[in-house]
């Protein structure tokens, strides 16, 4: 799987980001020594770098510029300096994306996947597996034992969230939040409709009863 380097001096954020990304099956490298980050970053040869701007020794702008001089690895700048000016500056120094702290993890994860896909080829990055189900995000289709069904954008997003939580219950609010983060501002009723259609489509490919409702809590696979 892809290696991600986190350059962040705040311990809590570093550790939590690490466990978040590890949940998404990335290999995560971190460092606590910021005296020669550029050399460390190049030596560890990551597929993607998450870079904080406020760092001891050298600031993120400098590191970004130095990295760009010697490597084309995708860089996401994550920072609490969030003015348009900082964003422009980061982009000019060669960052691929800019996320303001406190970040929206949904967006961060999506952006990481997109950048990795773009830089190292799309294969496999759009496919997700859970149990008997395979979800192809690119084609927006689900398949089970050779049978397949096409999904709408919302349905495939809902299925993706449920698959990523690996059988754990996901609340309606969390599903709605994830949909909102991908610009589908659904309300309660629409979500119910979407869930029912998804359940029907799963039944069509023999996945009867796969999508379970936990009353008052949410849904799970």
């Amino acid at each position, binding site marked *: 799987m892809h290696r991600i380097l986190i350059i962040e001096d705040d311990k809590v954020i570093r550790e*939590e980001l690490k466990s*978040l990304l590890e949940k998404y099956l990335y290999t995560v490298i971190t460092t606590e020594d910021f005296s020669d980050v550029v050399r460390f970053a190049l030596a560890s040869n990551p597929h993607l770098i998450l870079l904080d701007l406020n760092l001891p020794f050298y600031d993120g702008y400098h590191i970004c510029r130095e990295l760009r001089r010697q490597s084309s690895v995708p860089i996401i700048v994550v920072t609490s300096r969030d003015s348009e000016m900082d964003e422009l500056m980061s982009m000019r120094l060669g960052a691929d994306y800019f996320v303001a702290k406190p970040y929206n993890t949904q967006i961060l994860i999506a952006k990481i996947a997109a950048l990795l896909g773009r830089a190292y080829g799309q294969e496999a990055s759009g496919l997700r597996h859970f149990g008997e189900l395979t979800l192809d995000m690119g084609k927006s289709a689900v398949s089970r034992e050779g049978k397949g069904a096409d999904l709408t954008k919302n349905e495939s997003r809902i299925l993706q969230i449920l698959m990523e939580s690996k059988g754990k219950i996901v609340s309606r609010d969390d599903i709605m939040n994830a949909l909102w983060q991908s610009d589908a501002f659904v309300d309660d009723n629409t979500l119910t409709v979407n869930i029912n259609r998804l359940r029907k489509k799963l039944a069509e490919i023999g996945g009867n009863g796969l999508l379970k409702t936990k009353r008052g809590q949410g849904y799970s696979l």
Partner: protein
Amino acid sequence: MSAADFLRGKFLFIASLMLTAGFAAFLLRMLNEGIYFTLLLPCVFLVGGFLSLLPEYLEKRAYYRGLRETMARLEEKRFLAEIIRRPHFREGEILYDVLKSINKSCNDELGKYSLSSLEYREYIELWVHEIKTPIAGAKLICENSQNRAVLTELDRIEFFVEQALFYSRSSNVERDYLIKEMALAELVRGALRGGARYLIAHKIKASAEDLDYAVFTDGKWLTFILRQLLDNAVKYGGSEVRFWGRQNAQSVSLFLGDNGIGIPERELSRVFDKGFTGENGRRFGRATGLGLYLCKKLCLKLGLGITLSSRPGEGTVAEIVFPKSDTPGAGS
């Protein structure tokens, strides 16, 4: 300074001149001098006396007239002492020196206050950036441990921290924003994404349509303004928020409508005033009278128009007007 004013100031001198001339005439008369001589000599006295006043009068008149004109022309009156020249007559010199020292002491005080307000502003900026790191840490912990209730509250904390930052920016004289061409639809979506948890927790139905316009503004600032307006819509009983756009002759309008309790007509003109909470604010008890004031102030700085219209019981519509030109403040 008119001639009459000047002569009034010289009353004693003139009176004594007249008396002396009168007394001279009286003496000459006593000495039985001829009538012509008796009148001529005092007249020469008088003419000589008045002539000696003339240069002083002309100089003072020129100086004070210049002073008044400069004062009238000056936009910032406190700079007067730095512009005028030091005069060549004694009272003027004293006046000038006094003005100069008052000016210096004012400038020192002003400098002190602007420095302390600048330092405070810098502190707020720093503090906001500092506190974002622990908030980000807390949010990540919550995400990893699936603690939704705390996440929603953290979103609120983040919003209020932003509010403090924008409040301090709004009263700043320098421009620390960046006007760029932005897609209106993306700005609206950004505001909805940012407020998603709060809006979803309040069961708000949101929609955005007809927003395919490009506008010139600072994205971060505008997103904050929209979040503030959304916050109000939720606070005052809305269950539905609707964004839509409209192309005008010289501008693009963005509308945000809700179906909340609305604002009484007599209060509409005052909702942007600082500290104004109105009937709704008192009823709901959570109004600070800051939100809309801040929106207005930020809009003014960005060169945008903002108005509210409302029907009590049916809802409120906020309109933000983006002028077509890319220079803030220009256009309608």
